[in-house]
């Protein structure tokens, strides 16, 4: 039987996706540092949960969890070790790879039972299939790769007591600052993303983008041109240097579709574009496009959406 070790950081959608993908490959053993993560693992079909108690681990960045994950992976010697492709997931995977002299793949969008991993290269323009040739298949899995499907069970729970070594106390998390997220879904996980670009023209006019996003229950995104111009906060940037999104619907308004932007959204299922310039590259990838002034098109669309609801 194929053994899959999965790091479950929390009870979010991305973690559920990784568990769902893992379950399709074999028997899943989940690593959870809190009850919410442990219960998600049970809900998504893990056969076993390592419930780690590591008092103080949360006060330090990466190192304490890296040590725990390394020890568990060394002992379990799985066929696969999967983590979500987040900053933390990638950092932990990197540390495990060096510690165990093991291969490492990041941003995997699919996995076969024989270990073949699919990855996007060059902003999604090329699809790679790779195999790990050193140790087990250690991979971080991209958000949106799998539709999360529950399979509730009663996993065997093994409590792992870990002590945070002094060597793992080098980077202290002195403060955690959460900026108000509002009522909109998280950009990276949203089913619908409505993004504005340079064509929006000002910070004030981004309110129109927000209204469309709210009407569709989506998140708001922005192109680099828009964030660089100060129209919208940088953390909402979609693109090569921002967030990569893969929603069911991506609506781009006033965005030309430079490669830098396409890198962050071209695996979206349905792409809709509104732009004044009929030659904008975004129309080349749109399932539906309107050549026109977004300040005419979007308010009319909004009115129609409200009517149809």
């Amino acid at each position, binding site marked *: 039987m194929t053994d899959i070790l999965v790091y479950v950081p929390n009870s979010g959608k991305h973690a559920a996706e990784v568990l769902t993908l893992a379950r399709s490959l074999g028997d899943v053993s989940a690593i959870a540092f809190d009850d919410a993560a442990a219960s998600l693992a049970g809900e998504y079909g893990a056969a076993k949960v390592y419930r780690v108690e590591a008092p103080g681990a949360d006060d330090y960045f990466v190192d304490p969890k890296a040590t725990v994950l390394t020890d568990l992976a060394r002992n379990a010697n799985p066929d696969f070790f999967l983590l979500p492709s987040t900053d933390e997931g990638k950092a932990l995977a990197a540390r495990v790879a060096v510690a165990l002299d093991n*291969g490492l793949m990041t941003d995997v969008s699919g996995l076969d039972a024989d270990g073949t991993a699919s990855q996007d290269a060059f902003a999604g323009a090329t699809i790679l299939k790779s195999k790990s040739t050193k140790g087990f298949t250690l991979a971080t899995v991209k958000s949106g790769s799998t539709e999360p499907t529950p399979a509730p069970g009663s996993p065997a729970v093994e409590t792992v007591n870990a002590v945070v070594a002094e060597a793992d106390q*080098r*980077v202290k998390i002195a403060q*955690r600052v959460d900026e108000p997220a509002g009522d909109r879904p998280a950009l990276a996980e949203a089913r*619908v993303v409505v993004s504005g670009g340079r064509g929006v023209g000002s910070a004030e006019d981004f309110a129109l983008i927000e209204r469309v996003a709210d009407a569709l229950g989506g998140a708001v995104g922005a192109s680099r041109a828009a964030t660089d111009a100060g129209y919208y906060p940088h953390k909402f940037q979609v693109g090569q240097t921002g967030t990569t999104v893969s929603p069911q619907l991506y609506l781009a308004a006033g965005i030309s579709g430079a490669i830098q932007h396409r890198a962050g959204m071209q695996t979206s299922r349905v792409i809709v574009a509104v732009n004044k310039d009929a030659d904008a590259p975004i*129309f080349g990838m749109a399932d539906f496009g309107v050549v026109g002034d977004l300040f005419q098109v979007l308010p*009319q*669309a909004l009115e129609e959406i409200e009517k149809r609801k």
Partner: protein
Amino acid sequence: MNIVVLVKQVPDSGLARQLDAQLRVDRNGANNVMGELDEYAVEAALQLKEAHGGEVTVLTLGPGQATETVRKVLAMGADKAVHVEDDAVGGSDALTTSAILAAALGRLEWDLVIAGAESTDSNMGVMPQLLAARTGAPALTGARKIDTDGSSITVEHQRANGYDVLTATLPAIVSVWDTINTPRYPSLKGIMAAKRKPVETLTLADLGVAAAGPAAASNEVVEAAARPPRSAGQIVTDEGQGGSALAGFLAAEKFI
């Protein structure tokens, strides 16, 4: 304070990029530029040097043409460069790359290593942590702000919904996002001065690294294919009905 800034020459992400016959990033046919996020790392290093003194050394690993990127960093204001250049490097994976860079860092005196949060060709974003594991220095990644008093460092680690304040004692490894600063352009004076700045070229033998390239890689690309083009969509020109047409499409696709 002595700072090493890591830079990587990459194919320009604004143009079409491809793999070569060995299924590696094609660097010969591409327009090669400094990694997009590396410029922010360079600027952060120069600002810290201006505030605290010391030297900025640029470290790169790449073919001969990466000299252009090294010269650009020197023109921006870095003091000297180390360029690891060896025919055996091509096709190395991230783990081997980290072993080579760690060996090069072992020859330098540094309090701080600064890198971009990820390269803009492979976008893995793991190098700072790989180097932390190999050098024993702590990694504080994804910074949108750096403060140091010369003996310890504080960064704001950017997250999707906020940030974490991280602190550590130097020496340390930091990576930065493009939210941290606005990189300077090289001045004419800087470009002239760069020509006289020392660039040390090292080979794998100099660094004592025996295994590199595809043979040492821990994974193998078995197939590469261009993403199938999206089927052509419906494009309408707004003549007063564009918004309704858009809403109609969204309804037909069941988004309303």
